[in-house]
């Protein structure tokens, strides 16, 4: 909240494109973050529109995961503003908890509640945070587990499930809250190669349903086929953003060309 507090009005006006175009859902402007001396996010401006799938690409340590985590304030920021649906992120407390309940998050390491079965994982926050009845929450949980292809595993604990299955439960858990935005922080990076596709298929189906998503990934095939827009980051800077086809065939920055040469040819 220190540096570029100036002229927020200009920024709010800037993306106001012609009427009828997509509405902005997440707006980051002038976002900065440091870890000690390390400047991990440098003046990030990014707008994600409703229904849009934005894929964040970049080398390790580029800040893409950190950026993703700032959107629900799992990481705090040192400067700039983040708004969701026009409302600035609350600093803490119940307002922040309420906002988080509307933003689904899927982690690299799944983070299913280890002492709860798959079904209970999907039920818990519906009942405790959303205050739904147990019956309603169970019905919804079963429907969601069905949708991610895990109805038969509802009674199993996370440790009894494969990585791909755990990640699909995690997606169901997030969807149960009926989020208006989903954040995926390297959802397939901890998976065995053969289970990556089962998770990506679920995410793709979600994108097709019109869910707004920010996806941090190293899966170039997924980025190319599922993204509406690719955002490339390096060293904490948002280097370029473009349509996936343009990015993969004709990246405009040297840094992106470099990156693509490394990840696409091996």
């Amino acid at each position, binding site marked *: 909240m220190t540096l570029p507090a100036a002229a927020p009005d200009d920024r709010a006006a800037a993306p106001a494109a012609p009427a009828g175009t997509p509405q902005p859902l997440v707006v980051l402007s002038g976002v900065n973050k440091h870890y000690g001396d390390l400047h991990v996010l440098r003046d990030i401006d990014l707008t994600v529109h409703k229904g849009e799938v934005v894929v964040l690409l970049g080398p390790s340590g580029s800040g893409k995961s950190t950026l993703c985590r700032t959107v629900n304030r799992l990481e705090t920021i040192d400067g700039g503003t983040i708004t969701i649906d026009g409302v600035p992120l609350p600093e803490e407390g119940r307002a922040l908890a309420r906002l988080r309940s509307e933003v689904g998050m899927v982690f690299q390491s799944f983070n299913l509640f280890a002492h709860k079965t798959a079904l209970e994982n999907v039920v818990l926050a519906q009942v*405790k945070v959303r205050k739904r009845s147990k019956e309603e929450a169970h019905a919804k949980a079963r429907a969601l587990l069905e949708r991610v292809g895990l109805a038969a595993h509802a009674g199993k604990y996370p440790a009894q499930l494969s990585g791909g299955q755990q990640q699909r439960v995690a997606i169901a858990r997030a969807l149960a809250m009926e989020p208006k935005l989903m954040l995926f922080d390297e959802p397939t990076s901890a998976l065995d190669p053969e289970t990556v596709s089962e998770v990506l298929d679920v995410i793709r189906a979600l994108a097709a349903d019109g869910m707004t998503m920010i996806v941090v990934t190293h899966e170039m095939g997924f980025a190319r086929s599922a993204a509406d827009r690719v955002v490339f980051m390096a060293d904490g800077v948002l280097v370029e953003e473009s349509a996936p086809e343009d990015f993969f065939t004709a990246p405009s920055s040297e840094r992106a060309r470099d990156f693509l040469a490394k990840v696409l040819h091996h």
Partner: protein
Amino acid sequence: MGFLWDNHTVILDAFGEGLILSGWAALFALVVGTLLAVMRVSPVPPLRWAGTAYVSVLRNTPLVLCFMVFTSAIPHLGFTAEPLTWAIWALSAYTAAFVCEAVRAGIKSVPRGQAEAARAIGMTFGQSMRLVILPQALRAAVPPLGNTMIAMWKNSTVAAGFGVAEGAGALHDLLNDHADKIWTLFIGIAVGYMVVVFAISAVFRLIERTWRYA
């Protein structure tokens, strides 16, 4: 053996008194200790400081001092209670510090991602503690808590010096009258303490088994 049998009502009453003392102290210490552990990991600095201060004082001073505070200093302020009541207070207050540290170790053993997932889905600190962290932390804390409870049971003998007629106190009284039976008495009372320790261990093993999840 005959001598122990002749005095079995005295001895059993004494152990009964000790079990009442330890039972209540276990209950209070587990509850207060868990709350202290939550305070020590809470995002509110004054709560963290209070928790840390409590543990630093109670864990780093002898139990006898703690008993003296409750049986001498506090009554001096005009409060009155039975010796057993003060002993329960003292033993609970002291043991809570150790319970706190066992539970805090349990909390630290829960992967960070669990709390992150709980926060990310919209839980408050209290909800994430109650619904996600503590259920896992307490499972991890069962073995050290068993140790703490065993130590507490043996520490309860200190109460004998403060007017509570528990097991070690009975030993002392009986020895005054029957100095020739010293070995019989020692062994008898020692076996009594061990039986209770075995029982505590068994209970904690059972908890450990039934609380295990896949």
